[in-house]
């Protein structure tokens, strides 16, 4: 039988170490809503989402109550809208009506984000894909909860540089369109390479076309729990360090598995995957950078950070894999700057730069995440940064992503406040040497060779 120490350990994780289940995300296919009439399409989308997900928030609250484990977010991901709206939408404005429908469906069911305002253009763009991409600034400016993601490359197809170039402009336009809110729109826009079909985390979640009609995906969190566990093994060997992370990741993930299974039973929707990600929050002690410090680095960004992150990411997976029957999504440590107090401190202290963050993304999910840059940064420069990050994903057969926020009217030395889980961020300097002639070339970067790995 369970003993008092085990009970106390579990409850302490929640009460003192910020342990929570970060999100229950229902993936919903909208392929059966496709219609050539825009009004009918919007009506079908609204009806399907509000029917399938009507009990999501209620069930989430029941699970929180039964186990006294916080479930921070209840969310929805849908089929990439470029596919769903292709037959009905003849202009970017037509696509914006779908964004508004998604937003109102999200409000009706009481969730806080809906992802899938997306296009998958890793090799080429259809007319609909391009219309959707061009509608993003307006869509994100005129909705509250819609999240957008564009997959512009993959290991199998290479990188669509036409899409990369376009996305540099779109990120900039989105920043302009939401400048009264400190360019918040860009916090809801991700550019991916090798985007997973079953990611429960925003802003990059969408419901892939290879998925079932509806599915439950769960993302757990718990950097604070890992950090506290590591406090007990200060100065010990790497073996002890790794074992401790693994065991902790196992325990955390088991709760995710329980929540996913219970939600699946109560909602009558099949269980998809657990995403084994250590997702930080701005709360004190809930920081991935805090784990690095506990491992022995003065600040995130110090030499050794990439190795520490590689170790952390791998051990979290090793511990988590056995704890769950299905693992998927992004699965790794997240290193968003604005959502992690330790990362913010490291940037302010000058320990962490954009270039070091880029190196770190080679060994972890996900990418350059929630990084505020000067609003005057050129679209071509943003495209160049995107291209670099996509190349890391393409060559290393992993997911990478870029979520940069060029904050209009702000520059290095200033900070920007997004609020809530999105946190706040110091504006980081960007390398201003030109890459214009490179990103302005047409076409795509071919798929990489899969042998002769060096």
């Amino acid at each position, binding site marked *: 039988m*369970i003993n008092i120490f085990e009970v106390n350990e579990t409850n302490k994780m929640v009460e003192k170490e910020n342990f929570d289940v970060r999100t229950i995300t229902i993936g919903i296919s909208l392929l059966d809503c496709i219609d050539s009439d825009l009004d009918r399409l919007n009506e079908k989308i609204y009806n399907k989402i509000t029917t399938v997900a009507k009990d999501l928030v209620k069930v989430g609250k029941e699970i929180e109550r039964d186990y006294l484990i916080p479930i921070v977010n209840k969310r929805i991901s849908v089929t990439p809208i470029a596919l769903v709206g292709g037959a009905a939408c003849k202009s970017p404005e037509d696509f914006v009506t779908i964004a508004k429908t998604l937003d109102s469906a999200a409000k009706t069911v009481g969730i806080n984000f809906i992802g899938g305002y997306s296009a998958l253009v890793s090799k080429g763009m259809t007319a609909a894909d391009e219309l959707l991409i061009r509608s993003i600034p307006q869509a994100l400016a005129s909705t509250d909860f819609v999240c957008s993601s564009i997959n512009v490359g993959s290991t199998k197809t290479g990188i669509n540089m036409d899409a990369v170039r376009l996305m540099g402009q779109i990120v900039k336009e989105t920043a302009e369109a939401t400048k009264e809110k400190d360019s918040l729109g860009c916090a809801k826009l991700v550019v991916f390479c090798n985007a997973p079909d079953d990611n429960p985390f925003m802003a990059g979640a969408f419901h892939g076309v290879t998925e079932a009609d509806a599915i439950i995906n769960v993302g757990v969190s718990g950097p604070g729990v890992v950090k506290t566990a590591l406090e007990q093994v200060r100065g010990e060997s790497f073996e002890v360090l790794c074992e401790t992370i693994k065991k902790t990741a196992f*325990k955390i993930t088991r709760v995710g598995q329980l929540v996913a299974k219970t939600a699946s039973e109560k909602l009558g929707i099949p269980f998809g995957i657990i995403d084994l990600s250590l997702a930080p929050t701005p709360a004190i002690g809930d920081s991935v950078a805090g784990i690095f410090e506990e491992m022995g680095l003065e600040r995130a960004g110090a030499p050794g950070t990439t190795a520490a992150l590689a170790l952390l990411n791998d051990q979290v997976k090793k511990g988590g894999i056995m704890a769950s029957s299905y693992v998927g999504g992004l699965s790794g440590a997240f290193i968003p700057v604005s959502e992690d107090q330790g990362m913010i401190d490291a940037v302010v202290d000058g320990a962490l730069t954009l270039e070091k963050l880029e190196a770190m993304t080679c060994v972890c999910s996900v990418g350059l995440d929630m990084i505020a840059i000067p609003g005057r940064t050129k679209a071509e420069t943003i495209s160049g940064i995107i291209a670099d990050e996509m190349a890391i994903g393409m060559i290393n057969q992993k997911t990478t992503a870029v979520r940069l926020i060029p904050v209009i009217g702000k520059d290095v030395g200033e900070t920007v406040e997004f609020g809530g889980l999105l946190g706040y961020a110091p504006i980081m300097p960007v390398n201003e040497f030109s890459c214009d002639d490179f990103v302005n070339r047409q076409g795509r970067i071919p798929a990489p060779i899969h042998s002769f790995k060096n």
Partner: protein
Amino acid sequence: METKSRAIITVVGKDTVGIIAKVCTYLAKNHVNVLDISQTIVSGFFNMMMIVDLNASDKPFDELQKELTQIGEEIGVDIKCQKEEIFEMMHRI
């Protein structure tokens, strides 16, 4: 109907006379059977855990939780009631 109905009740707070009595009286009144009790005092703080069987009780789980919390407030301790699976999942393979 709930399929598995065991819960863990934890009581943490300043030690006073009659904490266990009060909780157990409430449980008995609601046909909740106590399967196991363990208790320690950690630096002056009373720390108790009970494993209980809810099968014979017709009180809905959320009401049980609320009323136990209220009893806790009356005697100045923190009482939690959680379904057992979360602990089984985390600590047993």
